[in-house]
């Protein structure tokens, strides 16, 4: 009798616990969706009226910063150059590093974990620090603020994201797949580049997307390193505008038209990230079907 009641008490407690946590999860999901919706709503509400074809097809004209004609094409192109360039650079460097960590250093768990720890630390370093570091480096080398300097600094900023993103995917590949590959007589590089890279392709795409998102959205690291200009850069050594800085400058203007254009620029930035996300989803889907499920 006693035993029985104890059991049923436990049962009801478990039931309430289950109930409680389901609601917590339910609520947090909705809160996140709500916040996201609110952000997008604010940007769209203020930005859409100011958005025009002129905004995305023209560079700033003489009176642009007083609310007159012109657009932010310089910043759009600049941001794309910077985002794509730095993502590409970080990918070219990061992919081999991640593969190396998981294939050649497979038996050196301690070394790999140390590398992971350092990368996670770097991931957490605020981007203004990268900007300051980049600035110091530029002064030391006698370089001027330019697209190239920006690409390099941003690449450094996103490298930890890139490496750790790919590394997380590689880390979870079971040893059996390595054994299968080696048992066929594959070398380490064949195993890394022909087998493991394919297996972890969805993770690679996600890592690239995350890196790109961070690269195109970052403001602090480019503040000193890319400069700002109304022209579209025609070479790596020229300074360049970026969308985040364009938003920043326009937002701090006292003129309402200019302020509104900051939101329009934000809409453009969000749209770029959205397009890249959708593209990457499509690619992930196409590659996912080849990955072996464990």
């Amino acid at each position: 009798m006693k035993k029985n009641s104890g059991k049923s008490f436990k049962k009801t407690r478990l039931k309430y616990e289950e109930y409680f946590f389901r609601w917590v999860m339910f609520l947090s999901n909705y809160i996140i969706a709500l916040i996201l919706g609110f952000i997008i709503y604010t940007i769209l509400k203020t930005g859409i009226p100011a958005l025009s074809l002129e905004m995305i097809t023209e560079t700033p004209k003489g009176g642009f910063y007083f609310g007159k004609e012109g657009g932010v094409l310089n910043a759009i192109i600049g941001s794309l150059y910077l985002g794509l360039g730095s993502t590409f650079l970080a990918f070219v460097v990061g992919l081999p590093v991640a593969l190396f960590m998981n294939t050649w250093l497979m038996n050196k768990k301690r070394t790999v974990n140390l590398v992971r720890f350092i990368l996670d630390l770097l991931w957490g370093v605020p981007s203004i620090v990268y900007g300051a570091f980049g600035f110091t480096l530029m002064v030391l080398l006698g370089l001027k603020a330019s697209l190239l300097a920006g690409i390099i600094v941003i690449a450094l900023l996103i490298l930890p994201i890139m490496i750790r993103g790919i590394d997380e995917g590689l880390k979870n590949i079971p040893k059996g797949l390595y054994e299968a590959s080696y048992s066929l007589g594959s070398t380490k590089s064949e195993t890394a580049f022909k087998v493991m890279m394919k297996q972890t392709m969805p993770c690679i795409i996600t890592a690239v997307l995350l890196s790109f998102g961070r690269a195109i959205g970052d403001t602090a690291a480019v503040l000193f390193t890319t400069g700002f200009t109304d022209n579209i850069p025609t070479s790596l050594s020229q300074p360049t505008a970026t969308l985040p800085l364009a938003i920043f400058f326009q937002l701090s203007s006292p003129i309402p038209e200019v302020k509104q254009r900051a939101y329009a620029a934000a809409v453009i930035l969000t749209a770029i990230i959205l397009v890249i996300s959708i593209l990457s989803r499509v690619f992930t889907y196409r590659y996912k079907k080849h990955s072996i499920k464990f």
Partner: protein
Amino acid sequence: METTHFSSSLLEDKNEADASIQNKETTYFYRKKVDGANQETERNKGEASKIEVRGLNLKIKNKVILNDINVKIPRNKITIILGPSGCGKTTLMKSMNRLTELYPEMNVKGEIFIDGEEILNSRRDVTEIRKQMGLLSQRPYPLPMSIYKNVAYGLKISGRLKKRFLDKRVEHYLRQASLWNEVKDRLRDPASGLSIGQQQRLCLARGLAVDPDIILADEPTSALDPISSQEIEKKFVELKNNYTIVMVTHILRQAARIADYVVFMYLGEVIEQGPANEFFNNPKTEITKAYLKGSIN
């Protein structure tokens, strides 16, 4: 007496399986290195066993996993490594193609000879050594690519080939693994979409494509349904004319059905080894007798 009775019924199973396979006219073997293989056999005629393990010891952090293993595995036969789980069968098999190198915690000492040539401490390129052996694992691990590319991968690893030859060879090895008819219309589909049984046969085709002399199979049927398991067993009986097959199992009946030679392990040691007939009908040690009776698992 009881033991003998039990095992002879097991052996009947084996004879049936053998007979049913010989009735089939499925001998479409042609091998890339036929000449080379013959030469090799010529050269090693004195060498009775294909693989010989001598004084192999393996420790993990001072824990003895394999203790002084001495095994001779005969050429072109099916050798079954038998024993309760955890006794070191997988580890012994991994030593043979040096996959133990993927486990830094393993400390391997001893010698393994293949065709009389030492491989464990050899300076030879380990990839070359591994190409002599195809591996089937407990759970199939197809490569993350299409069915076609899985087999082509093995072919490409063993040398560059023209597209035309590649198609032919891929078909050949898929046929050898009895998979061709099921996949010929979807060669470009991802291998991950195959059933587990099909995946295991794909792994067999891929392993054969590297053109090894030896097939190492670690409980290759343990994840499979009974029909797929039977297909793998049949395949092995066919393949033993051309390959030396080493298979790990803990299923007594399976061992009895297809074994020519048995290595029986217990707690990291080889207790007994010999021809299957002798092993099942006339076990020498008490442990073997107990195992055959089913009182050790």
